[in-house]
């Protein structure tokens, strides 16, 4: 039993972790949450060092220094776009550390209880799965290897075999207490991790990372049992539980059932994106868009025929008003031929009581469009098609458009990937700046309204 002050310090650290997760769940407190977590971590590490580093104190410090020297620059220098693979890597080393800790403790302790051994086995197994799995995801995201699902011949058979082998090895360790078997188990775990992640395809990799993250949490919790350390149990469990939920939420947000991602080995769910040949579109959730809007300074609404079809004029005005109340500049870009009759948008927006001053024309909007944070394209299509400007071969070449592709971000509300009146494909849909929000415009706007209120 550690002295009371140590335990209290651990408890305080655990508390910090809970608060950290809580903070990280709301935009406003996310940063503070992260800092609280870091503070808790510092407390825990210092406590552990002061109380537990009876031997090897200097070596430990050196190892920590080395870790810092590697970790901080890596984290600092990584490009924003490469952050997911960095997280994967950090997660992997965490899993490896947990496995090593359990392994070492196993070696140190001559004889442990069954529970101790079970916990050890779990830590080593899960830790190595997490490590190798994370490394593979890293390689995928870094595009060192293909991002497409890799289907080994007889992959499933190999997978099942590895799982059975792990189980047997685990049983062996518990029964015999053999260190060799434990090392073999670690190796089996590494294989399992690789097999587990290989079939996951590009877009789903982040979900796999999240799951591996939860795994590492569980490994840490298990190591807490190994070391009889409450802090490790609490923190590991927190991460394990929240990671699991988070994984589910992420899968939901992408509209893919978890099992599909992990085991479906990509039964190409024929989504709308499929019609876009090789080009990919990014479809977002209402919440994504809500946050985009909530943190914008200026928003341009470009309504089109779809707004009329959906009779979404009132909903659009409500959303715009809400944003204005939050101090966001909102204007409507009225294209001369939006809709299906001259002045179609005027009629609708007047009905919804949008003040005339908010209606802007092409010439009012285009010069300053580069500084618009978000353009909300509500059921318009042709009137924002960059092809009319850039592709002389396009049947609509020469029609003036809103240059929304020059704005900082574009949200496209429509029901499908179908083209507009002119029947011409719209390259804006495939622009990386564009987030698609599929669905009836009125529906989407109504949901968006609710979501923005919660941001």
């Amino acid at each position, binding site marked *: 039993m550690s002295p009371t002050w140590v335990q209290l310090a651990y408890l305080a650290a655990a508390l910090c972790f809970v608060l950290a997760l809580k903070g990280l769940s709301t935009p406003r407190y996310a940063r503070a949450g992260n800092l609280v977590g870091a503070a808790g971590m510092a407390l825990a590490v210092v406590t552990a060092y002061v109380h537990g580093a009876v031997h090897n104190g200097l070596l430990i410090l050196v190892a920590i220094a080395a870790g810092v020297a590697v970790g901080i620059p890596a984290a600092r220098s990584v490009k924003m776009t490469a952050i997911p693979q960095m997280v994967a890597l950090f997660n992997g080393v965490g899993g490896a550390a947990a496995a090593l800790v359990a392994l070492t403790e196993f070696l140190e302790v001559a004889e442990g209880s069954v529970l101790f051994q079970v916990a050890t086995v779990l830590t080593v197994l899960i830790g190595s799965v997490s490590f190798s799995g994370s490394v593979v995801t890293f390689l995928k995201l870094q595009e060192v290897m293909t991002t497409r699902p890799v289907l080994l011949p007889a992959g499933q058979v190999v997978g099942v075999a590895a799982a059975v082998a792990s189980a047997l090895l685990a049983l062996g360790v518990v029964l015999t207490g053999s260190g060799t078997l434990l090392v073999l188990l670690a190796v089996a775990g590494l294989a399992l991790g690789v097999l587990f992640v290989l079939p996951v395809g590009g877009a789903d990799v982040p979900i796999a990372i999240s799951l591996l993250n939860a795994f590492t949490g569980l490994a840490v919790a298990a190591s807490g049992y190994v070391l009889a350390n409450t802090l490790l149990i609490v923190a590991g469990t927190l991460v394990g539980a929240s990671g699991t939920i988070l994984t589910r939420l992420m899968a939901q947000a992408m509209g893919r059932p978890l099992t599909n991602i992990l085991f479906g080995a990509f039964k190409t769910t024929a989504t709308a994106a499929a019609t876009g040949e090789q080009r990919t579109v990014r479809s977002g959730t209402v919440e994504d868009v809500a946050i985009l809007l909530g943190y914008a300074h200026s928003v341009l609404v470009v309504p089109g025929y779809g707004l009329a079809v959906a009779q979404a004029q009132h909903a659009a005005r409500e959303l715009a008003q809400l944003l204005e109340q939050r101090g966001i500049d909102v204007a409507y870009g009225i294209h*001369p*031929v939006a809709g299906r009759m*001259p*002045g179609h948008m*005027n*009629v609708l927006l*007047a009905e919804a009581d949008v003040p005339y001053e908010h209606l802007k*024309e092409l010439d009012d909007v285009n010069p300053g469009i580069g500084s618009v944070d978000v353009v909300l394209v509500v059921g318009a299509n042709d009137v924002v098609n960059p092809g009319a400007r850039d592709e002389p071969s396009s049947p609509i070449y020469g029609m003036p458009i809103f240059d929304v592709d020059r704005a900082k971000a574009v949200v496209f509300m429509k029901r499908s990937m179908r083209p507009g009146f002119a029947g011409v494909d719209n390259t804006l849909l495939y622009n990386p700046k564009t987030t698609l929000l599929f669905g009836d415009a009125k529906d989407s706007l109504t949901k968006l309204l609710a979501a923005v209120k919660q941001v």
Partner: protein
Amino acid sequence: MITVRVGVPAESRPAERRVAGLPETVTTLIGAGLTVDVQAGAGRHAHASDAAYRAAGANVVPDHPAGRCEVLVSVQPPTPEQAACLREGDITISFLQPNAEPELVEVLRANGVTSFSLDLLPRVTRAQSADALSSQALVAGYRAVVEATRRLPKFLPMFTTAAGTVPPAKVLILGAGVAGLQAIATARRLGAVVEAYDVRAAAKEEVRSLGAKFLELDLETQGGVYAQAQSEEFLERQRQLIAERVAASDIVITTAAVPGRTAPVLVTNDMLKAMTPGSVVVDLAAESGGNVAASQPGEDTWLGEVLVVGARNMPSTMPVHASRLYARNVTNLLVMMTADGRVAPDLDDEVLAGCCLTHRGELRRELS
């Protein structure tokens, strides 16, 4: 018991296309135990045929029913000649406009007729269902916008089109009573940008309650209260404000009447000259003197390139619904004085007393 007979004449005064009874109100009156005589052709402008009246239970009579019925209801008052046929104790209800018709009033008084004028109806809550001034002002306000719109060589709404953007028309309403408010609402519906002005304190909120802009004279500064409504400074500031806003407007509609008096001139010829060519001004007060100096009742006058429309009996331009509302007003008032098939106005009743002009040979109101 002989039943009381209500007479509905065909209106004979010029420019009058309404009628004081329609088949539906005939039904109501018969339900109240009365008999109804309708002069042949009374409903022709209101598209109510003699057959329809008959179907509702009325007797269609060939001549003006004055003298052959106990109650005469009409829109315009009877002529002195028609009134001369009325017998002692007969009742007549119409827009009597007593100040304009002293001769007629004298005939009615002398004959001992009990005459009610809807002009005089007290505007209390209970009398609202008989308030023909309101109902006809509703029609007038709506029609003023329709007539102005038709004459304006421009759109009222804004349009952004491939051939450029057309800005919304600017409409100014002077006087925000019932007619003015309705004009505001109608112009706003058509997509115009509307502003309005009135001297009544409550008007500001009322105008805004229709989503229009209220023009304010910046006179509050003097001790926190408005300047005396008739003070010279007030009038001068009002003139300035109106001149400025008239010049900026495509349509001006004036409705500022002062009950029983000549309407104030709010828009002078100089103001009109500053307007964009093609602008339209409708003066609903033209008949009572005119808010617009240049207006002639019943005539379209060009002042430079500005068209001034002097309204004359605006409600008659929409006879079906104007008649419907008026007939119901008159019927409601008549039903108010009827019990068990007998028409017996209780002149202690605030409402009836208020609008009773002559009774038993007495003139109950000062004329001016």
